[in-house]
């Protein structure tokens, strides 16, 4: 069902969605060409609401949204081009996956016979061929996830939207899912992958949209996000026999908030406002004073810290407090 039109994948203009007095998403603006994107944000950030708006399941309270140049709510034909795998679990204990897929393909206008063949083909591809005539109540969570994925792929969409597809999958299942999505993207199809786990999204695509509190905070690549993380106030652990001496060298720096030396002097924990300056200084100290370090550990890449920074910036706040460390945020 591929088309040659040049309409953008997604065009969202000033979209807000309210649930009564609660804001689901707030003033989102974005234009995306075709490609693969990760929609990253913690639980409750507004990912599912945004997906609901993109698929036409929800209407924006304000603003307009277009998918492939069409309003998905009005031009329902555009839904042929979208495959959605929602986050909610599948509660059809008595229905076999094949019968379910046949019905969903029929809703796309497929004749029953062709739908049946197609269902077998797709279920085979997601590894459910042996179990396709079994009631889904006998499936494991991973199998149900694959059944959900199969229905999203079955009608040959151009855009695949997955909401938390890794939930409940074991490591092998996650790897298989990642490989499948990589192939999907490699075939030139578009993908929107919503997750609260950055590294899972990163395994599939390099483009991210960060959403938090209903706001789209930033769009960029993983490298750009990591650079931002590296520049966040954080605690850095420096390990090695010379850690106490290093602590002494750092004590007078204005961008150091606190220094804790371990009782056995094996490592020192530094709360630092500007980590990049710390790393630069450490490099100089090692070269000039020949200090011996065995390891440097920063934050583990906790996205929530980045989110909080971006929220503060979005609100126009000049300072930010993370783990007791207050930083001035540059605009």
């Amino acid at each position, binding site marked *: 069902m591929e088309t040659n039109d040049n309409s953008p994948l997604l065009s969202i203009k000033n979209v807000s969605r309210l649930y009564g007095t609660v804001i689901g998403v707030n003033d989102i603006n974005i234009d995306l060409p075709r490609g693969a994107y990760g929609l990253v944000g913690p639980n409750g950030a507004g990912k599912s*609401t945004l997906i609901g708006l993109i698929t036409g399941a929800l209407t924006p309270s304000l603003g307009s949204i277009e998918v492939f140049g069409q309003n998905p709510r009005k031009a329902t034909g555009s*839904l042929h081009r979208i495959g959605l795998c929602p986050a909610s679990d599948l509660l059809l204990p008595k*229905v076999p996956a094949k019968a379910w897929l046949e019905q*969903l393909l029929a809703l796309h206008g*497929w004749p029953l016979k062709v739908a049946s063949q197609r269902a077998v083909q797709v279920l085979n591809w997601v590894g459910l061929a042996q179990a396709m005539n079994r009631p889904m109540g006998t499936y494991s969570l991973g199998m149900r996830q694959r059944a959900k994925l199969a229905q999203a792929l079955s009608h040959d969409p151009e855009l695949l939207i997955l909401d938390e597809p890794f939930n409940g999958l074991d490591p092998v299942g996650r790897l298989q899912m990642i490989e499948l999505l990589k192939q999907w993207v*490699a075939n030139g199809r578009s993908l929107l992958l919503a997750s609260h786990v950055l590294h899972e999204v990163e395994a599939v695509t390099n483009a991210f949209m960060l959403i938090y509190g209903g706001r789209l905070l930033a769009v960029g690549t993983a490298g750009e996000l990591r650079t931002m993380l590296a520049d966040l106030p954080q605690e850095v652990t420096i390990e090695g026999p010379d850690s106490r001496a290093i602590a002494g060298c750092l004590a007078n720096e204005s961008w150091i908030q606190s220094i804790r030396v371990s009782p056995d002097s094996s490592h020192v924990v530094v709360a630092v406002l500007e980590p990049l300056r710390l790393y630069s200084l450490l490099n100089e100290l090692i070269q000039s004073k020949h200090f011996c370090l065995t390891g440097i550990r920063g934050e583990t890449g906790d996205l929530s810290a980045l989110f909080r920074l971006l929220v503060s910036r979005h609100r126009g706040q000049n300072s930010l407090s993370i783990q007791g460390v207050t930083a001035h945020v540059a605009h």
Partner: protein
Amino acid sequence: MLPTNTTTSTTADVSSATKLPWSQDSYVAIPQRRPWLYGLVGVAKYEWERSLSWSRLLGLLLIIAFPVVLLGMVKMLVDVNARANADQKFMIFSTVVFMLIPQVATMLSLLLWATPAVNSELEGQTWIYALVRPNGRLILVLGKYIVAFFWAFVGGTTAITLLVPILSLERSWDLWWTTIRLLFLASLAYSALYILIGTFFQRRSMVVAFIYTIVVEGVLSFLPATINQITVSYRLRSLFIQWLGVEFPRDPDNPFMIADLSGQWHLIVGILIYTLICLTISMLWLRRSEYSLQPEAAA
């Protein structure tokens, strides 16, 4: 870092593409010529298969058995205390058959099968899959309407067919044919009514439908006032009297209990229009209603 509100471009590397089943040259996309027809057939087949569960079949059996057993018991009592002549017996039994089969049993059956059309999908967390198909929600509910109509009609037909030899009345087959026609119309109209209630009230739809049935089709239809003409029961009752040819003189003091018996088509057309209106409103409502996503807390 790209600022918000900025267009970004990320294109997948297609050079190393692995051919997937849906991108192979042999695969040809299916033309969408009669999507509604195929959709309805697909949903009807799916719902039909789902309805063949033991619990649903047991429900159907109870709905069939309920009028048969009740009328069988009435028959025994009337035979034992047989003072009534054949015409009076026919009048008594046919009236009870009308009340039980095209009315109570059909309503009960459709309460079970038509009313939860949307609610069952919401509870099974499968409504979203219909929402993301073009006209999926409309086709899904119409498909459920067809299956609900079918089961109600089959249940009622089975019950009246079983009753013919049990009652062994002189004009048993007249009663059978009249009941079948009334069943058809009742199933059409009540299915549409309960589907409408089910789409309006996505939660507690069965409670609302039950109360509506008691108040409107039960009480209101027997009120001696023009307002009873909005009920299906009033029209079915009038058709029953016409088709069966029973003596039912209109009470001059109470002319509103049955319709003018000079014609049947306005009654039939009335029921069909009622059905059409219910289904149309359901479809319009479904088109504009939204999937009840849990509100996500904003910071």
